[in-house]
Structure formats: structure tokens, C-alpha cells
């Protein structure tokens, strides 16, 4: 495989993962692996660099510009690293009715960041996003992969403090509506026992 001089390919030591991803798709549809490959890189390195774009293009037999073209369409992939805590605030209507604009203002002030920025330490980044499918438990703040729902001002402040101490709490499971209480609120993945 073509190697850029100073960069170890991301998938060099992840052959099993690579073949698992490629193996999901039929031979005639290997290009479908583009999004999962981008996602692995984004998740691990918090951005997708030029070198990684070239590497993914090479794996899939595409031109780098085709990978870039697809990548630039989607909000999830970033050209520059996002913070260790990537905060995504939904500002769409149901969340706005529950205070999302004020939460966005609060986070901009508190973190001294504007939408799209990452702080100098690389700890926090802030991104305003659209509806996260959590409108019944608005407002919602997504931290990396995790949704925090019904985020009040005090809860938001506590979350930011916790992240500053690198002690992000488990989210409580919120649902509302039918069967609201059917699951203990503290149950987490794998079951709280």
C-alpha cells in the first residue's frame, strides 16, 4: 500500500477491524465502507486528516477527492480535531421551546468558545446541531456519543464542572410518554446490578 512518508496508516494495525468492515458489504458495493471507515478515524483521532483521506481512498480504490467530497457533506466528520469533549447542542424547535438557545449562550460564555471552535487545550469543542430525535426530553446536549436529556441550567453547569474534572457521569435514561417508569432511571448499558 502507498504510504505517506511520516504517517503510519491508521488501519495498519487494525486489519481485523478493516476486514470486518469491508466484509459487511457485497463485493460490488465496497464503496459503502466509506462512511464506517471515516467514522472509525473520526472517533479515534477526533478529525480526519488529509493523510487518512488518502489512506481510505487507497483502501477503497477511489480518488482522495471522492472521499473528501463525500466527507464534506456530513456534519459528523471534521477536518480539524474536535475536543475530547465534543459538545453538540440541539437548537431545533422543541429544544428551543425548552431553553436550548439559552443553553447554547451559556456554553459559549462558560467555555469561551463560539459554535465550531475547539479550546486551546483540546478539551472542549462546541457545535450547534439540529434535531437529535430527543424532542420529548428537551433540551438535549450530546457529549461525544452520549445524550444528556432534560438538561436544566443547574444540570448543565454540573456537567461542565464534571468534564473539567474528567469525571463525566453516566447519563440517566429519560424517555417520557408511555412506559416512562418501566425501566429504572439509573439503568446503564450492561444493566446496573
Amino acid at each position, binding site marked *: 500500500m502507498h504510504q505517506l512518508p511520516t504517517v503510519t496508516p491508521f488501519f495498519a494495525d487494525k486489519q481485523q477491524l478493516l476486514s470486518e468492515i469491508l466484509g*459487511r*458489504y*457485497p463485493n*460490488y*458495493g465496497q*464503496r*459503502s*465502507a*466509506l*462512511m*464506517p471507515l*471515516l*467514522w472509525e478515524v473520526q472517533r479515534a483521532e477526533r478529525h480526519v486528516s488529509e493523510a487518512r483521506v488518502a489512506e481510505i481512498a487507497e483502501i*477503497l480504490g477511489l480518488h482522495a477527492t471522492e472521499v473528501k*467530497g*463525500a466527507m464534506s*457533506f*456530513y*456534519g*459528523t*466528520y471534521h477536518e480539524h480535531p474536535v475536543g475530547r469533549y465534543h459538545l*453538540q447542542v440541539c437548537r*431545533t*424547535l*422543541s429544544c*428551543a*421551546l*425548552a*431553553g436550548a*438557545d*439559552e*443553553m447554547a449562550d*451559556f456554553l459559549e460564555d462558560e467555555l469561551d468558545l463560539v459554535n465550531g471552535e475547539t479550546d486551546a487545550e483540546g478539551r472542549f469543542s462546541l457545535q450547534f446541531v*439540529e*434535531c*437529535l*430525535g*430527543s*424532542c*420529548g*426530553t*428537551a*433540551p438535549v446536549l*450530546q457529549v461525544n456519543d*452520549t445524550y444528556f436529556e432534560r438538561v*436544566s*441550567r*443547574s444540570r448543565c453547569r454540573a456537567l461542565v464542572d464534571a468534564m473539567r474534572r474528567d469525571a463525566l457521569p453516566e447519563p440517566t435514561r429519560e*424517555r*417520557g*410518554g*408511555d*412506559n*416512562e*417508569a*418501566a*425501566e429504572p432511571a439509573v*439503568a446503564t*448499558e450492561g*444493566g446496573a446490578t
Partner: protein
Amino acid sequence: MSDVLDAPKPITSRFDPRFETTLYAHVGAAGSHTLAYYQAHGGYEAARKALGMEPKAVVDEVKASGLRGRGGAGFPTGVKWSFMPPVDGRQRFIVCNADESEPGSFKDRYLLEDDPHQLIEGMLIAGWAIHATKGVIYVRGEYYRALERMRVAIEEARAAGILGTGVLGSGFDFDLILHRGAGAYICGEETALMNSFEGLRANPRLKPPFPAQAGVYGLPTTINNVESFCAAVHVMRRGAAWHAAMGTDDSKGMKLYQVSGPVARPGVYELPMGATFRELIFDLAGGPTESAKALIPGGSSTPLLPWSEATLDLPMDYGTMAKHGSMLGTGGVIVIPEAKCIVDAFYNVVRFYAHESCGKCTPCREGVATWLPKMYQKLLAGQGTREDLVVMEDMVKNMRGTAFCPLADACAMPVQASFKHFRHEYEHLVDTGTSMYPRRREWAE
């Protein structure tokens, strides 16, 4: 005559003693996402039953049930399944649209997280019915927990012989590909989703050809919403007649409605189709927590209805919503409080579509993505004029039916409705330079 009198009345209220929740019955129960739980509650019986029938008979059963697609457009599911071309040896696909990103909609998320096997079973039934041996579940990338639960459920199903070669002891091979989206609403449009799945930019494709002719990788494809597949499970399990006994003339079965905005208990509620807004908003969601002036019936693309006793008594079905100038959409009801400025609220809606426009066609790129939000910003800055309002109304009129895909209409229609019912708020803003309802603190301590 006596036949008509004796025919049982259709079920249109959740409080009808004949109604039972099905789609959402297990959501939230401890362990509901596991195969063991699912099988202990009758799981995969419907698939066994379907596999014992001719595929065409399965399609006919779904047709007879009156089930219409729950992804927004309400197209009859069985009819869609019957569009697949004759079997000719090419690979055929069944695709699940789990991109759920229409503002106000959040039902699919809980189905994916808490009842993933229900979806697998529905896709298996659909795959059998249309002779598709491969399925794709396209889940929006933010639904991390849903993706994890789906991944594990698919593995469980493979290990138990429910997916793979000769599923459930039959001669039918069927397997699923779980695919993650990456943060773009337009991927919910079915042809954009297919492009996205193929690793391309998610621009919608020209139709025709329709997915049944040329879908995923150009191969015959049927695509449905998560809830549509889940409903098909219960149609198979309990029969078309059971399903058709719920609802109104053109809208059969049960539906997951969602309520958000200032109500006491927002969330997802399962009701028979044709139940009223009053039943949903008051009897189940506990009523508004402050005075309301409008409701959006089915996600932000659907035109608002002014709040009134008459509106509250409308049955939430496809035909009634159309008759009143709106749409049932996803059943995602958003309550708009009196104290929210309509101009501000619809700037929010417009900003959403502007952000999500794919930029492919002129009416949407120029209208939705560029000029409409700029006009709203001008109004909200107190610098608008009466002429601006005329220009805006003209603009949205010209966006109707002229764009490449329905996204531009999805933006134009609600804006038109906001002008129709709340033009006085727009006028107050341009005449006085201030909103009738200045922004207030909405964030709970």
C-alpha cells in the same frame, strides 16, 4: 342496513376496552432489547407464520390490513411491496429507514433501542414477502445507543439461526447490514439515503426510476420506516382484520404519536389511528403547561393548525389532516405556546431546512438555504417592511412543487401556514420593530 348497524364500530380511542398497545408494549421493560425477552413474549412467531405462507399472500395480508407507511408520506405498505419487479436472479434489498431526523419525531429511536428484535422480525417478514435476501438498516449516526443495541440484537439473531442461511429452519436465507449515517437530515429522503449508503454525497436521485426498479447499487429495493416494519409484525401475528378494525376510513391500525413542547408529560404514546389531539395532548400528555396558540401535527414539515377546541377534536389521521391543509407526517406533535413569537419559531424551522438543504437544485439552494433565512433575520432585527412580507410569501409560493425533492416543500408549506394563521405577528414585528412576544427565559433552573 342491519349489517351496517351490526358491524362493530372501529376502534379510534385508546380508552376503547378493545385497544391494546402492541408496537410500544415492551419499550422500557427491563431487558426488552434481548432475544430472550423477545422470544418469551411471542417474538418471531409472526415471522414463522409468514415463512409458512406464499410471499404473495404475505403482501396481500399487509395490503388488506390498510397499513400505510409511517415514515411521513403514508404510502400503503402492501402496495409498495407489490411494486417489486418479477424475480430475475438479481440481488434484491429491503431497506429500513432509521434516519429519523424530522424535528418533533423521536419514536423510532425508542423502538431501535428497546425493541430491536421487533424491527429484525419485521424486516425478515418484508424480505420474505418481496424475495429480498439482504436487508440494510440505515440508522442516523447520533443514535449511538440504538446502533449498539441493534448490533448486538443482529448478532444474537445470527447465533440463534434467525438470520443467516435457512432462517428459522426454513429454506430462506436472510441477513442484515447495519449502517451508520453521519448527521444529515436529507439522508432520510429515500434516494438520498441510498446514495449515502453507497458512500456518496447524499443528494436525492431522480425518480423514476423508483427504488423497486433501481435502488441500492441499482438493484431492486423496497424501503420502509422503522415503525412500518414493526407494525407489519403485528399484522402478521394477529391478522389483517385485527389491524383494519382500528382507525378511520383511510387510516388503519395503531400509530406512535409523539408530543413535545410545553406539556406536562411529553413523550411517545401509542394510540389507534383516528384518536383526537385532545386524547393525546390532554388525556395522555397531561395538557399544556401554559396557554397554547398552535400545534404542529406531524413534525416540523407539516403545516401548523391554530389551537382551538375544534382543532383538538380532530382525529389524527391522514385524510383529516389533508382536509385541514396539513399532514399527519410522522405523528410528531409540537405544541406552540402563546408566548412564543411565531416569527422566531419559524425562523428556527427555516434555519433547520436551510442547514439541511443539499444544495442540488436552485429553488431550495437559493430559497430555502439562502434568502429565506436572511429575510427572517432581517425581520427579527426589526428592519423588515411590509413589502418584505409580500416578497417572502411570493418566494415560498414559488418554492412549492419546483424543487428536485420534497425538502423545499417541507420548508415552504409550514412557512405558508404561519403566514396564513399568524400574519398579524409578522405585521406587528415589521410595523413596530419589536416582536409581539419578546424572547423570555425558557430554560429551567
